């Protein structure tokens, strides 16, 4: 191929030397600020609740907070350990949901949306589009440890399994009516709503989209996988929304269970 101009470096051309970090005049710093506040608030709340090791189970109505599911310590409240317990009591610094919380945390940590969120807000790479980042060197996700982000799909598989357990918890709570048998209260609605939205967030994951159809080079002759890919793509377009909504519903579900379990409020019953 012919070229009429020498390469820019040989022609002595330079990039525009603009000293300002950015010339943007809008409030570009507000979204990362809100992200820092939102994620920090969730992490602090979650840490406090996980270490509290109390008020996670409402025996009367079978409400178990998702932060303690599945409860695995021998010291779990009677009836709360739906999958059985390990033979020893956990010390104060170990979460009762020892096998699920780390995977859920890693699922969200490696999630393509949260990566964008914390790279921009915490790591400032970049803080906002067309705003100079403060780092002298950048290798992105090409090296250890960030190359581990590529394991997202395995945390997706784990999160899907945990969502099954959360679904089981929410379904089981429907059979803890005041008089025994089926019953439904506000707590049930909150737990079910949380589980539904957790499924939406989990299934709208980019790895899920890839596994169910994205990895195919041709959809022709595979109508079921094409349909699944299409539906997941539809949910995936709002993955950010589901990511934030589920943080909110997790806090609401946990807080509600904590308030009822501690006797601060009583659970309004709709039926039985």
């Amino acid at each position: 191929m012919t070229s009429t101009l020498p390469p820019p470096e040989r022609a002595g051309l330079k990039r525009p030397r603009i000293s300002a970090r950015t010339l943007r005049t809008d409030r570009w710093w507000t979204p990362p600020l809100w992200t820092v506040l939102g994620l920090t608030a969730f992490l602090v709340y979650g840490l406090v609740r996980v270490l509290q090791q109390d008020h996670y189970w409402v025996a009367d109505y079978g409400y178990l907070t998702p932060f303690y599911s599945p409860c695995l310590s021998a010291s779990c409240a009677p009836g709360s350990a739906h999958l059985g317990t390990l033979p020893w009591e956990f010390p104060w610094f170990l979460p009762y949901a020892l096998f699920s919380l780390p995977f859920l945390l890693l699922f969200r940590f490696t999630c393509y949306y949260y990566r964008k969120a914390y790279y921009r807000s915490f790591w400032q790479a970049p803080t906002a589009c067309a705003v100079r980042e403060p780092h002298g060197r950048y290798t992105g996700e090409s090296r250890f440890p960030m190359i581990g982000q590529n394991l997202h799909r395995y945390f997706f598989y784990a999160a899907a399994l945990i969502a099954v357990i959360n679904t089981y918890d929410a379904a089981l709570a429907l059979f803890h009516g005041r008089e025994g048998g089926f019953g439904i209260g506000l707590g049930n609605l909150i737990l079910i709503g949380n589980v539904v939205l957790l499924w939406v967030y989990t299934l709208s994951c980019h790895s899920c989209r890839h596994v169910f159809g994205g990895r195919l080079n041709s959809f022709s002759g595979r109508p079921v996988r094409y349909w699944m890919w299409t539906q997941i793509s539809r949910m995936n377009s709002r993955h950010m929304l589901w990511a934030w909504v589920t943080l909110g519903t997790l806090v609401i579900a946990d807080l509600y269970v904590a308030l009822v379990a501690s006797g601060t409020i009583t659970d309004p019953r709709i039926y039985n």
Partner: protein
Amino acid sequence: MTKRTFHVWRGGGEGGLAQYEVEVNEGEVVLDVLHRLQATQCPDLAVRWNCKAGKCGSCSVEINGRPRLACMARMSTFEPEESITVTPMRTFPVIRDLVCDVSFNYQKAREIPSFTPSPDSEPGDFRMQQEDVQRMQEFRKCIECFLCQDVCHVIRDHEENKEAFAGPRFLMRAAELEMHPEDTADRRKISQEEFGLGYCNITKCCTEVCPEQIHITDNALIPLKERVADRQYDPLVWLGSKIGLRKGADTPVPPNTRKRTSSPEQ
């Protein structure tokens, strides 16, 4: 007609901002105002433009710090008293004023191995279904304005990464070919190792600035990252290749792949 304050970059890389008071009419875009500047105050102002309809991708500049097409930036979207700063794209060397040398992009385009159909298929044999066409059609909307390349912090803030990173526009091209039902080449390894897909941290600025609203990150870069993970970071795949279960499972690397050279002269 009102008067607006414009700050426009003049000169080459070492140039600076010059202030102008210029008339603006209702319904005009920034490119119209730049043309009025040329016509009335600075006839030597260099601006690259062509279609004035957001389809040629020529008039890429940064307006108040945001990478945009000058022909699609309506003056009515700015506050009445807001001054407007127009600078060339920061990622590329400036030839003069608002015109950049974007040959970096042409170099990267040449490095992407071309469409590689099966040698067994005759021209005209292949029939592509609509659902497969649709997935790639989105990427074909690209007008090569290079705003995504400009905004990507990997090369915008770290010029030293230009050798290792092809940028979102060309990773999207690699993804498009990788998804093509008739393309037989395995582009996963070269996407990671030659075109620097791992540098992308999916902060979605490329998607934000795309004037064609292509979902570059969600529909091209992340699916390509997932395909690379299939090939290179899946422990089960790794184990399978170690114990010999995956011999011949990978399609070959395209024959016209760039060979890394130690000297740019070669």
